[in-house]
């Protein structure tokens, strides 16, 4: 038996589902921040088990989805250079920028390779010293430590043809900004398990205090998610919101100190543009000055025009939890996983892709019984 089996067994989940039903005293709105949560909720059919008075909103926790067009354009500009190989996470290659995607660039002859870790990109650079290997460093606190470790490894090994574009983001500041929006009316936050393993559950304490918001850190198995939801509902009922850690097998109060130290060693906070949310102060990660030689934008002299977000695309509203995918005029008609307009449709973990894949493609089917 695998260790995950217990968290997927109906013997464990059915009592949780019942308890959620019994505990619910009024309609609640809960935002699941993380794209992996969004996917897991769909994949296990969790919505179909919950009372209809629980509304689940998907937040800005899909790294591909919050990467603005400007950054995609930078990756594309790098791909245009003859001597550059782009080594990227698979999710990113279909995201459209102002002029096509990395997949389209590859079809035109650019070198675009899919890697599973930044270390793979470094290995690629080592094997092809005559080319520059560029890794688009998107992602949250979960991917940042590995990227930092890769930069340090490149430095130690003296590998000079490996660069990144520092497009990383950090979570709590963005949530703070988002939750300041009075229209959102969120009662509770299902906090991302992976990110929390790095930053620790206490990182949400200021959010809980400032916004009087129930927070629960949860893992990604059905029992984890249901336990997180139950904790949030109880906190709402008791009128005493705080931070509950329902993922103690991976998350501690203070997080992974070594990983946090790695991030701090290589990166510093910078104002960062989030797709749909605009510029959020100190919510991005920029290479510190002593690592500027790994900065692809400098090394390759990349510059792009300010970009417009795609016309009609409502990814911004969806990322803010203000709109559900079927409410977007492009959803399922011009914007589909095969021909995505907005990033929420491209990434495996994007809210629109999750709705489309697990809910059925048509608008009419989607709107029934969603929340």
């Amino acid at each position, binding site marked *: 038996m695998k260790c995950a089996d217990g968290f997927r067994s109906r013997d464990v989940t059915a009592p949780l589902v019942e308890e959620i039903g019994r505990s619910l005293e009024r309609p609640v709105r809960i935002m699941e921040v993380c794209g992996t949560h969004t996917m897991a909720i769909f994949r296990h*059919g969790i919505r*179909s088990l919950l009372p209809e008075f629980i509304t689940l909103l998907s937040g800005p926790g899909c790294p591909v989805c919050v990467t603005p067009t400007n950054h995609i354009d930078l990756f594309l500009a790098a791909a245009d250079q003859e001597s550059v190989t782009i080594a990227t996470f*698979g999710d990113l290659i279909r995201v459209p920028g102002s002029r096509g995607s990395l997949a389209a660039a590859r079809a035109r002859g650019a070198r675009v390779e899919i890697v599973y870790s930044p270390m793979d990109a470094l290995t690629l650079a080592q094997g092809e010293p005559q080319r520059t290997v560029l890794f688009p460093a998107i992602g949250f606190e979960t991917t940042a430590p590995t990227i930092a470790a890769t930069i340090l490894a490149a430095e130690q090994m003296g590998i000079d043809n490996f660069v990144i574009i520092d497009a990383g983001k950090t979570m709590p500041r963005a949530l703070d900004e988002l939750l300041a929006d009075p229209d959102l009316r969120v009662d509770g936050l299902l906090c991302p398990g992976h990110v929390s393993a790095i930053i620790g559950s206490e990182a949400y304490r200021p959010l809980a205090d400032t916004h009087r918001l129930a927070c629960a850190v949860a893992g990604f198995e059905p029992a984890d998610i249901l336990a997180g939801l139950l904790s949030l509902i109880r906190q709402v009922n008791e009128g005493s919101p705080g931070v509950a850690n329902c993922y103690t097998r991976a998350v501690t109060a203070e997080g992974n100190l070594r990983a946090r130290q790695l991030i701090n060693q290589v990166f510093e906070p910078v104002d960062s543009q989030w797709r749909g949310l605009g510029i959020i102060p100190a919510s991005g990660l920029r290479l510190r000055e002593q690592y500027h030689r790994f900065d692809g934008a400098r090394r390759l002299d990349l510059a792009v025009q300010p970009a417009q977000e795609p016309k009609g695309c409502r990814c911004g509203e969806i990322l803010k939890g203000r709109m559900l995918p079927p409410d977007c005029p492009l959803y399922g008609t011009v914007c589909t996983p095969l021909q995505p307009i907005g990033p929420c449709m491209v*990434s495996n973990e994007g809210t629109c892709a999750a709705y489309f894949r697990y809910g059925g493609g048509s608008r009419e089917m989607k709107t029934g019984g969603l929340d």
Partner: protein
Amino acid sequence: MDTFISLDHGSGGLASQNLIGNLFLKYLTCPQLRDLEDCAVLGEYAGRIALSTDSYVVDPLFFPGGDIGSLAVHGTINDLAMRGALPLALSLALIIEEGFSLADLERIIASVARSSESAGVAIVTGDTKVVPRGKADGLFINTTGIGIASHRHDISGTKAQPGDAVLLSGTLADHGITIMGAQASIDIGGGIQSDTQPLHRLVGALLEEDTGRIHVLRDPTRGGLATTLCEIARASAVDIVIEEERLPIRPAVETACELIGLDPLYLANEGKCILVCDRDGAEEILQTMRRMPEGRDAALIGWVGEGRRGRVSLTTRIGGSRLLEPLTGQPLPRIC
């Protein structure tokens, strides 16, 4: 002898003849092929003629459990078998990139020969072309198969009926995860390898006893189980309900899929079939499948419902429900 394929090997001249004589005919020994005629003439057979073609471009060419050669033989045999046809013979056409290793080519032809011999379906005609370096990716193979479908059966993706049972002949996603792992240089472990194997004997055994209870046979190759079920549901205008806890998936495959961020329901299989049959006959058919090595892990995985909307849904382990859509685009690994 040369060590690499050159353009001369595809010229039709002496180098071509040497390649055919010294390499291909060394392994492929069917009399029709040996005579090097322009086409093969087969014997007389009663029944309806079944014809199928498929091209193989798998990367890497060699992978745990098989290679492009065995895949090219099994894939086309299985396409014939999925209409209830008895495969008779195969063609083998190669497009080779200049500079391809002759030793690798020999390994692949030996594998083609081994697979065709053990399946009892001969390669009776062939063709070889060489294209300049950079115009192909090493080696592409096309095989075309011819077979005979008896009048007794009418197996088709359009024949699923409300109330039918849905069976699967074995574990899911072994081939897909092996190839994705090999492409990403990830060692999946757990002894996972491609499931490439011919299914015509399994199908033959099932049809021999069958009295019209088997309605649909399909091999869930590219797009995986989910996409193939969607095709059947749409073609037959029926709803299909699959139960997650009944799906046979090896633990190592499931773990690897979770690590890389892939859904085993959408990964390719190269030696499995979906079978839709009368509910009453399901148990007996399942027992027949399990008696054959190809069907050892066969399972009943779901039912055709009463609805007629062409939808496929999955009842999850925790009792939830979700729709299964066909695969769009390539399966991409997720970022975190």
